[in-house]
């Protein structure tokens, strides 16, 4: 039944699309011609550039107090070129007289000029520049040649570089000659032979270059082509009045969105297919003679893999476009939202340009960025297929989420009817916080990752204080302030029953061992190199920092602020959305994802689930704070003492699991459940959303 509604709407969308010349041109014709056109243009530009660099005639001037020496030196270097008839394509240099070299350089009478300076002159110059004090100490009273050029002019840059190469060569020849004349026992060239070999194949180099740009290019075309259809399909339908017509038919909201998502995804996939076929035809078969740096090998199997890789990208781009279209009330508003959406999607595709970025890092969890890197790795021929698979799944999950989000927009009466507001939107405050808390954490996650990548202090302690203390503390406080939450309720600042503390003291060490055992299990599936773990340990525990400071920085501060953030604000916001068990899993999972090293995510998520359970059972944040602090302090202490929990036997892990169970049982006996949880009978809820403390039977 579902299929018939989807089929009907999908058919309608595709039929409408094919009858719209503008969409057909942007979605199909443009992608067909754009890549070969770009390749042809870039090939011509590259050929022209190479030709200009090798055949150009450069005019330059020689000035300065030691210009005679310079002229003599330069005559030697230029003469070399002229005396080599085989190298007729090499650049030639012509010395011209000048009275104002800087002016002549400005007006392009010359491409650059060389200053010949005496040793004293150079010493005086270096003495004035404190930044070059080191050079002054190492200066050996030799004549100085200074090449002046303008980097904003390509001919000037290239000419100066060409001449500099020749000067360096002349300097080497003369130095060797002096050494031999002074009785150096062997010719300097015989002292050691230097050979540099690039072991990367031409295909790998080309793959790296092409792979960096491919996803960016493909997503750009997807957005251009899919954008026209997506904008029309929801925002356009709202404006025309056909959306209300559709919403009153037998098709469900899910069917409508699925059909429209499939339609936009189909367009995006056609664009991908066109680009992959373009790559294979023009580069793989060598139809266009591009520079060697781009002549990547794209055999049919690689092309097919790339196509499969881009399927979730197409779905995600389509989902984002649909969300944009669904949340716009008019066609014009959708067009306004289109640009930020496009930039938002293009930004992650620049990930392959980051230096030394690898798919075996937290980037694998960033949709689109992970696929962009995977595409590069595949073209280079060095793909880690497990990580490529994870990247594919992550981006596919993001696409599904975008689709679900767009479907929700069709449930939003405010967007369809434009007449009313949601009750939570109207009331604001805590009611709205429950609705928005996940969005806030998504943004918080993105901000956190950006801050971690870009902000660091010379003293690692300040870095930790900033990233762990300030950022994590700012998040819950900002939420409390923005949504006007009751601080005590939102952060669960309630005293637990005394017996709980016994459970915490017993449970924290046991949980540390259990979590370590879980880490070992995960390590069987996702092995982490030992060097990675060691370097991580050294990074968080530098030897020069006193232990007590490390304990405060990495145990006490995280124990407090991370608990306030996750078991405080996040758990409070989600308490009515999920049943208690799912609530613990969700809060724990999100906590895990905030630990950006991929190997830490599963184990920290498990710890997060345990801490969430403790908070739900006790109704208080304080036991989780103590538990978290003990956990981190103990891990640091054992690490500093060289005790490896990871080497424990199954008996150790089983014993720890039993101890953990016992601790949780003690807490259960002393429980005073978190108030206002989902599934709780209304009679137990107090007016205003919270309820009186519940007691054990």
């Amino acid at each position, binding site marked *: 039944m579902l299929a*018939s509604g989807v089929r009907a709407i999908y058919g309608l969308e595709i*039929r*409408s699309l094919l009858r*719209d010349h503008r969409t057909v041109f942007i979605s199909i014709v443009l992608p067909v011609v754009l890549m070969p056109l770009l390749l042809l243009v870039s090939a011509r530009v590259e050929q022209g550039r190479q030709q200009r660099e090798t055949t150009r005639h450069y005019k330059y001037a020689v000035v300065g107090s030691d210009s005679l020496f310079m002229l003599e030196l330069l005559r030697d270097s230029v003469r070399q070129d002229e005396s080599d008839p085989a190298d007729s394509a090499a650049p030639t240099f012509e010395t011209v007289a000048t009275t104002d070299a800087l002016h002549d350089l400005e007006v392009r009478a010359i491409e650059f000029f060389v200053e010949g300076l005496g040793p004293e002159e150079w010493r005086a110059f270096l003495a004035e520049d404190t930044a070059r004090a080191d050079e002054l100490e190492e200066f050996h009273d030799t004549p100085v040649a200074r090449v002046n050029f303008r980097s904003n002019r390509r001919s000037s840059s290239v000419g100066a570089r060409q001449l500099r190469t020749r000067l360096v060569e002349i300097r080497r020849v003369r130095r060797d000659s002096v050494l031999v004349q002074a009785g150096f026992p062997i010719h300097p060239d015989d002292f050691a032979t230097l050979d540099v070999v690039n072991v990367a194949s031409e295909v790998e180099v080309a793959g790296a270059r092409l792979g960096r740009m491919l996803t960016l290019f493909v997503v750009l075309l997807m957005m251009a082509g899919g954008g026209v259809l997506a904008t029309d399909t929801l925002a356009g339908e709202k404006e025309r009045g*056909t959306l209300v017509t559709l*919403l*009153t038919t037998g098709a469900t909201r899910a069917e409508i969105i699925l059909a429209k998502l499939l339609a936009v995804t189909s367009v995006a996939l056609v664009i991908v297919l066109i680009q992959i076929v373009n790559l294979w035809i023009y580069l793989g078969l060598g139809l266009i003679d591009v520079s060697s740096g781009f002549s990547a090998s794209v055999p049919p199997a690689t092309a097919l893999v790339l196509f499969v890789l881009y399927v979730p990208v197409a779905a995600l781009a389509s989902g984002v476009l649909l969300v944009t279209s669904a949340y716009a009330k008019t066609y014009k508003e959708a067009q306004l939202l289109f640009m930020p959406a496009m930039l938002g999607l293009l930004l992650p595709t620049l990930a392959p340009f980051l230096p030394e970025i690898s798919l075996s890092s937290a980037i694998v969890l960033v949709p689109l960025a992970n696929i962009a890197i995977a595409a590069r790795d595949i073209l280079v021929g060095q793909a880690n297929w497990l990580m490529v698979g994870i990247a594919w799944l992550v981006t596919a999950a993001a696409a599904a989420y975008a689709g679900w989000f767009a479907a929700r927009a069709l449930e939003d*009466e405010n967007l369809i009817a434009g007449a009313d507001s949601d009750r939570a939107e109207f009331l604001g405050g805590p009611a709205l916080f429950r609705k928005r808390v996940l969005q806030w954490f998504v943004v918080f996650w993105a901000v956190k990752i950006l801050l971690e990548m870009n902000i660091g202090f010379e003293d690692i302690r300040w870095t930790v204080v900033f990233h762990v203390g300030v950022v994590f503390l700012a998040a819950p406080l900002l939420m409390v302030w923005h949504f006007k939450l009751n601080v005590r309720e939102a952060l669960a600042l309630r005293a637990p029953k005394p017996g709980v503390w016994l459970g915490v003291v017993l449970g924290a060490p046991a949980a540390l061992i259990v979590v370590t055992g879980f880490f070992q299990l995960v390590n069987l599936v996702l092995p982490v190199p030992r060097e990675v773990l060691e370097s991580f340990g050294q990074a968080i525990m530098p030897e020069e920092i006193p232990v007590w400071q490390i304990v405060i920085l990495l145990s006490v501060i995280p124990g407090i602020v991370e608990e306030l953030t996750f078991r405080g604000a996040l758990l409070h916001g989600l308490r009515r959305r999920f049943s208690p068990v799912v609530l613990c899993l969700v809060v724990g999972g999100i906590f895990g994802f905030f630990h950006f090293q991929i190997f830490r995510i599963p184990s920290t998520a498990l710890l997060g689930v345990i801490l969430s359970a403790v908070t739900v059972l006790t109704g208080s944040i304080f036991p989780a704070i103590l538990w978290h602090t003990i956990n981190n302090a103990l891990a640091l202490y054992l690490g500093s003492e060289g005790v490896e929990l990871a080497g424990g036997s199954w008996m150790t892990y089983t014993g720890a699991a039993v101890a953990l169970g016992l601790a949780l049982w003690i807490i259960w006996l002393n429980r005073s459940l978190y108030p206002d949880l989902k599934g709780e009978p209304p009679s137990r809820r107090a007016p205003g959303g919270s309820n009186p403390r519940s007691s054990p039977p």
Partner: protein
Amino acid sequence: MSTASVRIEGLTKVFYDDSRGEVRAVDDVHLECASGEILGLLGANGAGKTTTLRMLSTVLTPTGGRAWIMGHELREEPQDVRLSIGFYSSSTALYPKITPRETLRFFARVNRYPAERVEERVELLIDRFGLAEYADSRVEKLSSGMKQKVSIARTLAHDPPVLIFDEPTVALDVLNALELRKIIAQLRDDGKAVIFSTHVMSEAEQLCDRIAIIHNGRILACDTLDGLRGLTGKHYLEEIFVHYARDSQA
């Protein structure tokens, strides 16, 4: 248990508006409409007609109360409700790039009309509404009168037992409005339950078997025209409407 095709009990819709605060657009509405009957919903602009009909067509979710269409409750079985209705309003529109024939085919299919009978149904509607001449031209090329016929035909594409018309004549010229009223009367004769909203008194007088007067979201009266005359002692519908509207504000 009532056998009415449409039964509404205490239907309420509350909006939250930044400037006006809580607005009860529809307030505790009780109505029924049987097969072969046209129930008119008569009210001024902003009275709550469109909101009521949009709730019945599941575009909006009621804040309170319940309603059943052919025995299906709005919130519990929204898809069955939609399969039982044909919804037409001046704000609904057609897809411009497809033809009338494709339009009818699409709405029959998307409303789960038996696949083997879709073509037969499409031909029947083309014939009934006189669409044959331009059945294969794109909708965007048609005149507004032609589009209106196609719109009504697509409302009937899956032969629904309940039809909801929300101010259908509001954007039509006199002749097209007259033709539309004839079609609606024919549909009643075909045994359909028709709910028809309007603010035009003469339309309600001519067309409706029973008239529900709605004002500020509340149903003030619901009866046949003669019944309303008897209750108020007024002859003309306009007088009757003013009588109830003033009473409610007193």
